[in-house]
């Protein structure tokens, strides 16, 4: 469902279809995976600045491709980090970590 909504977004809003759309989608998933791994490390280190930078990047990339649910969760993690609520940050980062696999299915 999420993958389909992203493909529809790419087609209707970005005007990108075919192999270009596939390439872009694959690039997004790869980027998301890398950012989620960095986020996990930053959460363990309680590095607020790094958490905020990474979640900001996830927000931007995800909203650009129409993955709004991912963008919103990243935004929530960003705000939680700002408030030093590491509990919420951790649970949100674990949710985010699941998405690359979901999108690859």
């Amino acid at each position, binding site marked *: 469902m999420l993958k389909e909504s992203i493909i529809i977004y790419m087609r209707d*809003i*970005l*005007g*990108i279809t075919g192999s*270009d759309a596939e*390439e*872009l989608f694959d*690039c*997004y998933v*790869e*980027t998301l995976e890398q950012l989620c791994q960095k986020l996990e490390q930053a959460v363990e280190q309680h590095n607020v600045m790094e958490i905020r*930078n990474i979640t*900001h*990047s996830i*927000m*931007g*990339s995800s*909203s*650009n*491709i*129409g993955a709004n649910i991912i963008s919103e969760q990243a935004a929530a993690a960003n705000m939680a980090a700002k408030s030093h609520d590491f509990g919420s940050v951790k649970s949100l980062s674990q949710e985010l970590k699941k998405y690359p696999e979901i999108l690859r299915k």
Partner: protein
Amino acid sequence: MSEKIKILAVDDEKFNLKLITSCLPKTTYEVIGFTNAVEALQAFKNEFFDIILLDIIMPGIDGFELRRLLRKISKNKPIIFLTAMIDDSKSTLLNEISWDPFTYYMKKSFSKKELQEKIEYVINIYLRQKQLSSNSSRMESELALAGDVQRILLPPWCMIDSYTVTSSLYLPQSQVSGDIYEFFQLEDEKYLLLIGDIAGHGISAALYMMAVQSFIKVTAHEKKLAPHEFLNEINKFFCNELEGASYMTCSVAIIDFSTNHIHMQSAGHPGLFVCSSATGEIINSENYEKGGIPTGWFSQTNYRLEDSIEFNFPDDALIVGVTDGLFDACNQDGISLDPSELAEIIGSLAGSADAVTFPHRLVNAIMQMGYEQLSDDICIVALEKRINNPNLFELLIPPQLNEVGKAAVTFSQKISDPKVAVKIELLLHEYLNNIILHGMERKDSKQHIWVSMEQSNDKILIRGVDRGKRCRQEAGEQIDTDEDDSSFQASSGRGLKIMRDITSGISRSSYCGMNETIFTLEA
């Protein structure tokens, strides 16, 4: 601009760079992407780009810092910040964008259409501004050229002939002026003086001024006209040839130095001030304000003989013409110079300043009295009759190094004592070489240096007047050291020392663009 729109894109995420590239068709756009600022900066130094797309939040050098570095290379290349950043309570984002007039902002996420439209909009603004800037530069160049042409058409700042000494100060408010003056010999000791102000400012007034200048020269030489007849001819010229597109206030005078007689008429312009140098009295105080209708207003205007003024003047008279821009000079309280106040200043200055220095000293005096805000073109002309004085010798020297030797020898030949003659020659060599080499920025044929030599029983006074760089002294200040005046330094630095050794005193004064140097030597 290149055929394709060439874009420099910088974002630490490869995905975002790929997204931008996917949104912009290769037929129209060429996107060069970098994930770090250092590589992007290097590429910007080496290649041409039409526009820059920047992310803001990046590790290391962020978007704002990268823009600062890019602006050292290009002050006005358009930059679009593409960001998901939300502004904080201090409006950081808004402030960072708004201080630079060539920075724009676009929120992530964007659609393909939005991105393309934004890029094209920004580039169009950039190209329009570039065109405007180019037009503005061209206009500035054309104005400067018009100003140069005007200067060529005007008489030199100082003229001496067998009968007269004349000096003028022409100060356009910007690069060109609508003020006009002419002074030339009609026959024998009879001269024409015209001073006027053409309506308007800028290029149009300057062009009319040039047309009228040419007309005046031709008409005055072809026809023997009285002042009122001259005004009628000028009026016809404005109404017919210039089709009433402009008008001119002016005063015209025929001055006969054989009979010391002046015949003048005004067309809506301040009249001439005729002062006695001995007493400072204004001889024509009853009628220097007498007006008339400006030329070019009505084709039916008929200037009549009975409206003109005629009177005699003494040998030592100083004749001064001014344009009305002088009456627009204001002090800090916004109060402008009154005509009667100006007449007083002219009268009191006439006792101490000769025709050569008068125009510049007049403006200097007015500014020293607090009327420093000059908002209009100014033109001042001063002339006097050349009196036969066997002890006085004067010369106008072109600002060319190959004229210096000739001039120095000419002056030295007027001195009977050979030792003093050698000193004079050496002094003038040093003085003129220094002024021409170090003091004159413009060396065209109208920037003559006026030099006079007056002998008395025990001393010789040499005066030099130039329009070179401003000397640093206060009026009449004595020069004591080598550092006192850089325009007096020969390349070896010995020039001033030589001049000090020859003379018993040197003083320099500067008046509104004119320098006066006075050397005193023992006879």
